[in-house]
């Protein structure tokens, strides 16, 4: 079996890899510390891929595999969209598309005291931040940012929520602004909240705007930047023709 020459570790970077690919040979890279992110595993001297996706590298020494899937794995610090499933005495149980329900403590709001506990009904959509997500434990959420301020977290009223893959969510949240949002924002005015767990919420004054924005986003995952702008142009033309 042909083994890739270890002198060119960048040969796999930014390429699609599948589980089992050996991407790095450590025997030739002594005296270097390499940080492995998700999707990679160390087997004695070789680094093998565990998850299908694209191998990414960031200077000086970080490697990881990026993949887009429907399932979300909770991580501390992520901002996600959750749906209230139940409310107990001390916390709300929120579904964040992960393996377990998450707890949102009743006091985790800006200026939250026992006297002004928010009343969220079952089915309320919330934009929350994950505080703790250890494997095996239910994640803990909060409606404040790390310093305790409300910072846009909380209930999302009206609007339309749809599901996406995790890769699309990351693309929408990337900087610079992703082309589809840029093109839509130039012509339409709307509000949007993107959760890293694969949920997106859109709100606008007219329902046709909401539908156009949602459709544009849903179609844009596999398109390149230029293709996204062309697609948005076509959708907007249809919108003008119909109204």
């Amino acid at each position, binding site marked *: 079996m042909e083994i890739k020459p270890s002198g060119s570790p960048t040969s796999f970077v930014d390429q699609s890899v599948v589980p089992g690919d050996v991407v790095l040979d450590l025997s030739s890279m002594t005296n270097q510390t390499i940080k492995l992110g998700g999707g990679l595993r*160390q087997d004695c001297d070789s680094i093998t891929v565990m998850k299908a996706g694209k191998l990414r590298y960031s200077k000086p020494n970080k490697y990881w595999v990026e993949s887009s899937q429907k399932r979300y794995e909770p991580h501390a610090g992520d901002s996600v969209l959750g749906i209230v499933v139940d409310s107990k005495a001390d916390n709300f149980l929120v579904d964040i598309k992960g393996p377990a329900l998450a*707890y949102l403590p009743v006091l985790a709001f800006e200026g939250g005291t026992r006297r002004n506990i928010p009343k969220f009904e079952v089915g309320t959509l919330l934009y929350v931040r994950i505080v*703790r997500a*250890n494997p*095996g*434990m*239910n994640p*803990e959420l909060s409606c404040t940012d790390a310093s305790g301020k409300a910072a846009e977290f909380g209930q999302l009223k009206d609007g339309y929520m749809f599901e996406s893959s995790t890769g699309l969510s990351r693309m929408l949240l990337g900087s610079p602004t992703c082309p589809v949002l840029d093109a839509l924002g130039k012509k339409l005015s709307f509000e949007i909240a993107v959760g890293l767990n694969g949920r997106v919420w859109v709100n606008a004054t007219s329902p046709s705007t909401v539908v156009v924005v949602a459709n544009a986003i849903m179609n844009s995952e596999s398109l390149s930047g230029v293709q996204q702008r062309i697609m948005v142009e076509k959708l907007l033309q249809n919108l003008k023709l119909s109204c």
Partner: protein
Amino acid sequence: MEEEGKVRDMVTPGEVLGKASDVRPGKGTYAVPYNDLVYASLTGIHHSVPPVPDSTDQRPTVEVTDHKAHGAVPETGSVIIARVTKVMAKMASADIMCVGSKAVQEKFTGIIRQQDVRATEIDKVDMHSSFRPGDIVRAIVLSLGDARAYYLSTAKNELGVVSAESMAGATMVPISWTEMQCPLTAQIERRKVAKIGG
């Protein structure tokens, strides 16, 4: 005179074991004051324990013990070995496996609350840095708890995680009272470790 243990004298609940003036009621028996008799309350074997020589009460104690040999049952203050099943923000659940050195024969559940994990700084305890699901812990029974579980405590040096597996799957080696290290990957994981020996 029957020798203890030789004649298996089976009694059933309600059988008279003697007069309250002659015998003292022990485990599995009760005394009724109005007619001064001691009755059995369990089905089992009737034993008579001779009195302590120096005590004021010189009556032998009668007790009824279960005729089936059954496994150990956790009592308040007994040291138990349990396997952690679930770790939550404020407590951890564990399945009790041994009481003292005897294995149990039916399932008992125990709860280790956040304030019972250790003796110092009990409000700053992070349950995830103390236990993980699958760890074997040595704990002491605080109380019989509620209908669902016993209350356990690991708030002593010799109590805590005895054996744990790392995320790579190897049995970890303790290196301090808060850390254990995996021999395969050299990764350090935090646990509330029991001090064994010494």
